[in-house]
């Protein structure tokens, strides 16, 4: 499988120019997720209005797949409700695990469709999912009225 299928131009673009970088000044919730296997880390902050994600930012250090996927995630969820964001998260997870039927839905996944190649590199799946896991965590905490926390990515959860 050619390297180019994994490292598509879209992915490299998101890596070089993340769409919502940095920290939110007034996040409702901020979570920090970390993948100890490779040292990828992401701090995801969200601001909600009701159940709508009005703002989001990601500050991170890590491999191109983890950082680019997190950037794509921010693009796909901003301005959407939490249920819609969770649907996108689930669609992306299915894409990573090769469980999508037919063509990946570009409406729901946006640039996330470019990550289809990651499914063939099991070690990198966790990298791609890190941002989405952080989002799910942040959204759940925001809805529950908590402030956020630090999470080490648990291999047994959500894979």
């Amino acid at each position, binding site marked *: *499988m*050619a*390297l180019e299928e*994994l*490292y598509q131009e879209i992915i*490299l673009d998101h*890596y070089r120019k993340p769409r919502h970088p940095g920290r939110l000044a007034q996040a409702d919730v901020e979570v920090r997720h970390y993948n100890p*296997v*490779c*040292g*990828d*880390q992401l701090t995801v902050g969200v601001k909600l209005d009701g159940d709508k994600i009005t703002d989001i930012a990601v500050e991170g*250090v*890590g*491999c*191109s*797949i983890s950082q680019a996927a997190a950037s794509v995630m921010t693009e796909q969820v901003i301005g959407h409700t939490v249920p819609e964001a969770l649907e996108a998260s689930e669609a992306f997870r299915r894409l990573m695990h090769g469980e999508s039927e037919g063509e990946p839905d570009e409406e729901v996944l946006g640039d996330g469709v470019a990550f289809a190649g990651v499914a063939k*590199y099991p070690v*990198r799946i966790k*990298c791609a999912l890190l941002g989405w896991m952080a989002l799910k965590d942040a959204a759940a905490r925001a809805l529950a009225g908590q402030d956020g926390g630090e999470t080490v990515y648990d291999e047994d959860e959500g894979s």
Partner: protein
Amino acid sequence: MTTTTDRSRDGTPDRAPFDPARIRPDFPIFAREFHGKPLIYLDSANTSQKPDQVLAAMDDYYRRHNANVHRAVYALAEEATFALEESRAKVARFVGASDRATVFTKNVTEGINLVAYAWGLRNLHEGDEILVTEMEHHANLVPWQMAAQLTGARVRAIPVTDAFVLDLDAYDRLLSERTKLVAVSAMSNVLGTINPVPLIAERAHAVGALVLADAAQAVPHLGVTFDGLGADFMGFTGHKLLGPMGIGVLVARPELLDSMEPFQTGGEMIRQVTLESATWNDIPWRFESGTPNVGGAVGLAAAVDYLGAIGMDRVRAHEAAVTAYALERLVELDGLRLLGPGDVEQQGGVVSFTLGDVHPHDVAQVLDAEGIAVRAGDHCAMPLHTRFGLSASTRVSFSVYSTNDEVDALVTALDKTQRLFA
């Protein structure tokens, strides 16, 4: 089964210059290709590849000599017992240790845990200090944290300098009559740094402290010996030494080992057992509970035979030559930052680096597409990476079968990686 190898026919070490091309055919895995490219295996510090001779020895044991050891009277069991004990003797001789203080373990991690549990928990007290170093592998760090927590002792770390060597002045300042153990790597699995264990041991002994040397890299690549290092305990492992996984070795000073209570208890390590109590076997068997990994021991003995026939001085010289070539070529890459002394007098065949802003995971991925296997991450040494402001690095490591051509392929692939992520 034995192919033409780099050894003279009577088995004595060959004095001609070593040529890896002559031994590579002994390693069946090098026939494999990945992504259409021949395997370029630069991760021997992680685990080494195995020659036919090791595989054949293990296969022969299970096909023709397998039985449980030490207990049965029948001839086959005698053969199995002989296989185990002869393997022990060969391994002990290879590292200059005494047979009776050569314990088979699962790996180095288990060997260090053995010392932490069997010696540490019974001999460390509140206020005692264990010195480790900032460059230790987690295996020679976490067990001491555990022992300290359970005994009230304290773990302190000898720092690593910006030149990637141990700060020996800091070591002198840390040593005191409270120091009971110094746990140190003989050769760093990240930096390649060769630590002056004999000197460290001398100073530790002067204050009454014991020394445990993690020689997981040093035994296979530098040919260190137990008597040469001067430590009280030394751990190494078969799978980094061209042997199988699941067999490691802990050697110790015999009187010290003999004074120790067991680690794991059960069968084999006892002498007499009643319902209420048990008495212990002699060393080394006191520290080998349950059925041993006889197949693994046989494989390890075949591996030390293989390396011994080449001669560890020639193994070291070859790896140093490839490492020197790698160090020379790697610095041609703009943005490559070497982590390690950068000179083969101070560094064994392990070279870690960062490549500009490219994450090690991505480096390893691009290299994989070229059939090149390297390790990316923290190499089980998180504190060391934190010390240098990193979360991860890329590591290449060499063995007796590594070649300069492989280094050339590595550099070409690293250049390609940089251009992809520019």
